[in-house]
């Protein structure tokens, strides 16, 4: 039995992960922005077999609330083994290009809030000498592309931050897992045309649970994205800047 905190639990991927943990009988503490949705998640997961489940509504952009929430999660669960951060938004790139304010808000939601939470979780795990911190970053962070570079740069910041954190915490026996999903068919991406590269949230969720169990480092989901991103990463800049990706 594990004691798992999921931040941003109403995201489709996080909800699918929570169902897998519930089926296994792990104990859960969830946060979500909407109190109504949080309550429906808790009711649902309890019926799906979760023996102990708690939650607290929280807006991840309310940085002042982070420490108290962690305090409460640890107290309710009687400890913390795994923290999964899944909150985020998918910015409208064109709107961001026209608005500095919107761009900075998106960076705040998708990068700064993660860094705030990850710092606090890392220090706790370092003190207790164990734990697994998993964060949903994105393949979009591997290289900036004109179609979503605000989202991409926020995720790049998260990935780089986690890379450093992983080194720092290795000595303390704490695992830091960077999850990089490719295209996932969720409400966040409902306006996209779907093709063969798309995966369902359940499949990605199984990959996340497996990566956390194995205390992986950087995990692409599905795994073929590692190859795709290697290719994209290898394209020389003089060529890349001419592409319409």
């Amino acid at each position, binding site marked *: 039995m594990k004691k798992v905190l999921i931040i941003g639990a109403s995201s*489709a991927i996080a909800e699918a992960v929570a169902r897998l943990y519930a089926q296994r009988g792990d104990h859960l503490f969830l946060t979500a922005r909407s109190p109504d949705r949080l309550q429906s*998640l808790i009711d649902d997961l309890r019926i799906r*077999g979760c023996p102990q489940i708690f939650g607290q509504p929280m807006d991840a952009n309310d940085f002042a609330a982070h420490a108290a929430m962690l305090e409460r999660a640890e107290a309710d669960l009687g400890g913390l083994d795994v923290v999964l951060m899944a909150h985020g938004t998918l910015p409208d790139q064109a709107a961001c290009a026209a608005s500095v304010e919107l761009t900075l808000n998106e960076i705040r939601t998708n990068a700064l809030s993660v860094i705030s939470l990850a710092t606090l979780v890392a220090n706790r795990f370092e003190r207790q000498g164990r734990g697994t911190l998993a964060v949903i970053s994105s393949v979009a962070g591997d290289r900036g592309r004109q179609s979503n570079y605000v989202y991409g740069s926020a995720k790049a910041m998260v990935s780089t931050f986690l890379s450093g954190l992983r080194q720092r915490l290795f000595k303390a026996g704490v695992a830091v897992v960077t999850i990089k999903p490719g295209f996932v068919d969720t409400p966040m991406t409902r306006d996209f045309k779907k093709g063969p590269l798309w995966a369902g949230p359940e499949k990605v969720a199984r990959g996340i649970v497996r990566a956390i169990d194995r205390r992986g480092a950087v995990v692409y989901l599905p795994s073929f994205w590692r190859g795709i991103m290697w290719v994209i990463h290898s394209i020389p800049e003089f060529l890349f800047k001419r592409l319409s990706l």
Partner: protein
Amino acid sequence: MTGFSPLSWGRALRVPQRLYFLNDRHANWPPRVRTGGGTCLAFGNGRSYGDSCLNAHGELLMTRGLDRFLNFDPETGLLVCESGVLLADILRLFVPQGWFLPVTPGTRYVTVGGAIANDVHGKNHHVAGTFGMHVERFELLRSDGTRLICSRADNHGLFAATIGGLGLTGLITWAALRLRRIANPWIDAETVRFRNLDGFFELSDESDRDYEYTVSWIDCSGRGKRLGRGLFMRGNHAPASAPTGLHRNREFTFPFVPPLSLVNPLSLKIFNTLYYHKQLATETRVVQHYEPFFHPLDGILEWNRMYGPKGFFQYQCAIPMASGREATAQLLEAIGRSGLGSFLAVLKRFGSPVSPGLLSFPLHGVTLALDFPNRGPRLHALFERLDAIVRASGGRLYPAKDGRMDGSLFRAGYPQCQAFSEWIDPGFSSSFWRRVMESS
């Protein structure tokens, strides 16, 4: 909104429609649905065969994201869940706890909302009635934003209209249904071979009292003395003491759409003959897991692809008891003469329980269901001959399976359709409804 448009199960009808994905039952309508001027319709898991789950040039509300359980009372078996929950999800979770669906249709891959909107039936109709008869209450979200709790006591008119109401009365966000106790996942099942239609009716008389579940498969290629020959399947939930085996859930996905239908006169003749003779003994008895007993086709995901790019039509009618024997014989003769056999012909006797649903399909009598590859005009000529028999016998067709019936046949079969239309939400419509109510 996305670029693709879902097909219904028959894959024969393609219409343009805009999609809206729901994932929060508390959410209010998006502005487009509220004021768009067009109409919307809930789309669950797309197991309706024709156009009752389609809304050409309108909005489809995709409900599979509403898949949460709200409450379960282990004392009474009352389950409350969102409308996009699949019956398969309920079975997976609750069978190990000793509970079963009160009524299950031939596939477990339908949503709870779809099961209510089509008031589906199963092999136990003669004792348990329809799915809707086990629904205690549900929440209906109307296009004007009001949310109504409907039950036998509250908003009874909408309750009765929504059961079997083809999704036209609003969006069901959640529903409360009563599960039933079982001792284990096993069914004590028997298969009895019968030589003709009289054999079927004799077996029905003999079995409907002692067996909770009964259904028959008919060999459509049987003519003359063999008309209506087939296999009668009957069973009961196994008692706690029954010897049980090991069940392995094997699923196979039909991998592609073949360029031509794999169902054709030759393959049909071979399949039907082999299937009829699959057992040497006239009667066999096995203790069987519930999945192959109730949902034999669910082992092959996307089996509808085998009918090729043009898809297929299902024809399912219900005939009142008085003319049941005679009309069934006429229907089977007409199909035999046409040479357009059916891969799966299913015959079952419906019982006397009456659903509250105004447009509920089952009536006390017999129901015959057949699948036909889409062969265009030749098939539609056969359908018209079958329609004439159904009409003359006072029967009706099942909207969930239909993509082509004439409006007058629908209105004759469902005399309550005018009373029903009073309850329709003005923001909701479907391709089916416009076809049968606005055509001659």
